[in-house]
């Protein structure tokens, strides 16, 4: 089910912790102009579509309400790609040690 969650699904919610204008005093303007938001994962308590309000239970056992942002959210961070400038380091050291 791609467009929503059933009760018991592992989901991610978005919560607006502080709206823009109610944030900490003294923060830079490029930060203050945005709301302060958070994302929390947990098991959905009931059915909801993406963008709808949903309640979930977290790994720490808390009950939190927010906007359904994702169902079965994954980890997309990676190792990137080898960079030529970095690849040059090993051979330069080996050459130094072999000469």
């Amino acid at each position: 089910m791609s467009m929503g969650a059933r009760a018991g699904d592992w989901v991610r919610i978005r919560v607006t912790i502080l709206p823009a204008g109610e944030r900490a005093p003294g923060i830079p303007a490029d930060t203050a102009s945005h709301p302060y938001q958070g994302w929390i994962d947990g098991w959905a308590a009931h059915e909801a579509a993406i963008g709808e309000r949903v309640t979930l239970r977290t790994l720490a056992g808390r009950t939190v309400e927010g906007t359904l942002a994702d169902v079965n959210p994954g980890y997309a961070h990676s190792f990137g790609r080898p960079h030529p400038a970095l690849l040059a380091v090993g051979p330069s050291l080996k050459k130094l040690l072999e000469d």
Partner: protein
Amino acid sequence: MGYAEVMARKSEILLRATGLDYRSFSRGPLAFDYDAMMERVGYPLEEIRRIQSTAGVGRTPLLEMRRLTEAVRRISPEGKGARILVKDEACNPSGSFKDRRASVSAFHAGKNGYKGIIAATSGNYGAAVASQAAMYGLRCIIVQEVFDSSGRGQPEILEKGRKCEALGAEVIQTTVGPELFYVLLSLLEETGFFNASLYTPFSVTGIETLGVEIAEQVREVAGRDPDLVAVTHAGGGNITGTARGLRRAGCTSTEVLAVSVDLSGLHMASDRDFNRKSFTTGHTGFSMPFTSWPDRVDVPRNAARPLRYIDRFVTVTQGEVFFATEALAQAEGLERGPAGNTSLAAALALAREMDRDRIIVVSETEYTGAGKHPTAQLAFAEQAGVIVESGDPRDNAPGRRIVIPADLRRMSVSEVDLDRLRESYVRRAAQEAPGGLGDEEVEFLAAETRVPAERVRQWLSARSHS
């Protein structure tokens, strides 16, 4: 609940969340009895060793960098090229020295009946707290600053978030902003959990074992004390705890070197700058403010007080740390870091100036993985428009250009003027006490900055005349 409302209850929330009443150590508007606080609140060293040993923390190997030492000697003047040893802290349960800090907090929280522990951290400390919480059967919440306003997450922090979740912690990932502290306070109030702050005596004394082990292991392999211990420096706990451990072990002539990645010019609370940095810890964005004013933390008094312990402070560039990370992998067969290799980068440069019979210890490594790797960070930097190239690290410009040294000869350090930081500390202290500073306060500032009281008075009077 509103920001101001929660912040106004800060003192009572923190008091309940650590059980520590800092007022008993207070000696004036600024002065407090630091030694008594560390002595009475922290656990004795032997007890900490027992706690850590039970939790599988510490007793990590001290590895000789034979090939890197040899490489340095080949480019050094005759008779130069100090021996480099690395404490492989990645061997701790969650992959960094931060387990030492978390272990004492988790033990203390469990012993005092707290049901869970919370930490606000985007660093390895989150995984350490999550890991220790799992061992003690405590619930755990980690709050991280991860995303800019467009939703782009820093890859290293995304990895740390994954790891916390893998270890059973609830993770709250936020957008950029210092309101992380507000979230922490709200959660502490809601749950009644223990505040596993990085800056309590529990956390800082937990690192003393690292300094003690370094002393013991160097004596074992070399029959003498280390000459220089290089410590990656951010919030100040690492340098404070390690140096205290070295002193405890009787290393009176060992120089304690603080090393940070130079991120000058990038604002830490800026949404735009957030994803233009390739390091999320060990950098000057933390170390400069925390060295010149430690009490900017989530407890009333910071147990990490860097100016009491730093003998010398240098910075290195992002590209130099990536070089050191790659060198450690390719010449020593150890894939670690990157942030933990900040002090290794400095060691590779400084070993060239030191005699061959001298010993440099790099105090830590950290685990590596997807996101938390030079290739991930460089790809991310390029996506943000940062230029990445091989060349002379002097061309490095934080947030705009990362230059990876073309070879070992290009590695160097930049000295940080400690007196400037000391003076900055004293000036800030004077602002905090508008009623003026008495003799006891001046003596306290002298101990804090390791200068004679007369020097503190000069800085204070220069300020009042300027």
